[in-house]
């Protein structure tokens, strides 16, 4: 269905759903009400019965995605503020990020082929472990579909934030560094929020590692593209 008379309908609904869900989540603290889950669910619940195409939804909302560029620039602030932590622990963090990224890309690729997934889907799955502002350009470089990657990144965040707490109980991790890296490399932004609930140092480590892993993957893109 076309909503020609209301060109800003989807933008208004997106903003309203986001603000409402953020307010609800802050008040209730229930994970199912977090904007990461509730907003896409709500928008889909309205758009699917109306048979709205993505192009129609995106017409007046696509510029929101353009803000991901300045978000990338803003990542310089946590890097700079945590530079002492990085200088002290760079070998452990670098090895952890390298190992995590290799496992992420390798296992996504291997499992996708094992389960005979579509080629475009497999390629879009490769950057799923890094934060969206880095994952979308990386998907583009690798020949995947950036929008699909954003969807996979979201599911990674939702699942990773759920798994993380359980893993912390099972794994004998004594250092806040390891606990933070688990969330930062495994579940990007959603993981960083969880890590901040675990502890202040875990939160800082997770935030730093999330940004650096994104950069690391982006710079590894030409190598990865040559391998594929």
């Amino acid at each position, binding site marked *: 269905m076309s909503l020609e008379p209301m060109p800003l309908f989807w933008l208004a609904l997106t903003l309203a759903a986001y603000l409402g869900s953020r307010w609800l989540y802050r008040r209730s603290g229930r994970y199912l009400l977090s904007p990461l889950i509730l907003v896409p669910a709500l928008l889909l619940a309205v758009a699917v019965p109306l048979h709205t195409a*993505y192009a129609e939804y*995106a017409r007046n909302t696509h510029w929101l995605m353009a803000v991901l560029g*300045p978000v990338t*620039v*803003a990542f310089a602030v946590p890097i700079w503020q945590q530079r002492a932590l990085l200088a002290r622990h760079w070998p452990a963090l670098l090895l952890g990020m390298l190992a995590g990224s290799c496992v*992420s890309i390798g296992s996504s690729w291997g499992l996708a082929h094992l389960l005979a997934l579509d080629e475009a889907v497999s390629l879009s799955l490769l950057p799923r472990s890094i934060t969206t502002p880095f994952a979308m350009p990386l998907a583009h470089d690798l020949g995947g579909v950036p929008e699909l990657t954003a969807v996979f990144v979201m599911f990674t965040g939702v*699942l990773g934030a759920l798994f993380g707490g359980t893993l912390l109980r099972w794994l004998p*991790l004594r*250092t806040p560094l390891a606990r933070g890296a688990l969330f930062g490399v495994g579940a990007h932004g959603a993981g960083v929020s969880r890590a901040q609930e675990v502890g202040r140092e875990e939160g800082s480590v997770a935030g730093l590692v999330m940004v650096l892993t994104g950069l690391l993957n*982006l710079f590894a893109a030409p190598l990865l593209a040559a391998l594929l």
Partner: protein
Amino acid sequence: MNAVLLKKLTRLICELAVLFALFLFGSQLAAWSGWPIPGGVLGLALLLMLFASGLLKPAMLQAGAGWLMAEMLLFFIPALMSLLDYGSLLRDEGWRILLVIAVSTLLVMVVTAVTVELVCRWSLRHEP
């Protein structure tokens, strides 16, 4: 009260303008140079250099950068709606895709955490 709020808001908008300007400059630089690096990443590198040179202090951009990172979710929600065009893909492959993401995410978390933990313990033992 209102004057304080107005001052805060003006400050936030100025900080956001600086971050947007860095992004635009980074994008221009990427276009001129032909480097295969996104404009945002060049902007990030530029901002790190400004911090290192002392021309800018992180505290000057704290509100703007914090706001962008806190509300990041809003900026990628439109991309999630691409699901609208992939209904049949999800029906055919949805469960398999979720399985890949779940298993791979578990593996990444375990391997990353264990690697960092082992390197930390090793370096603690070998520190003088």
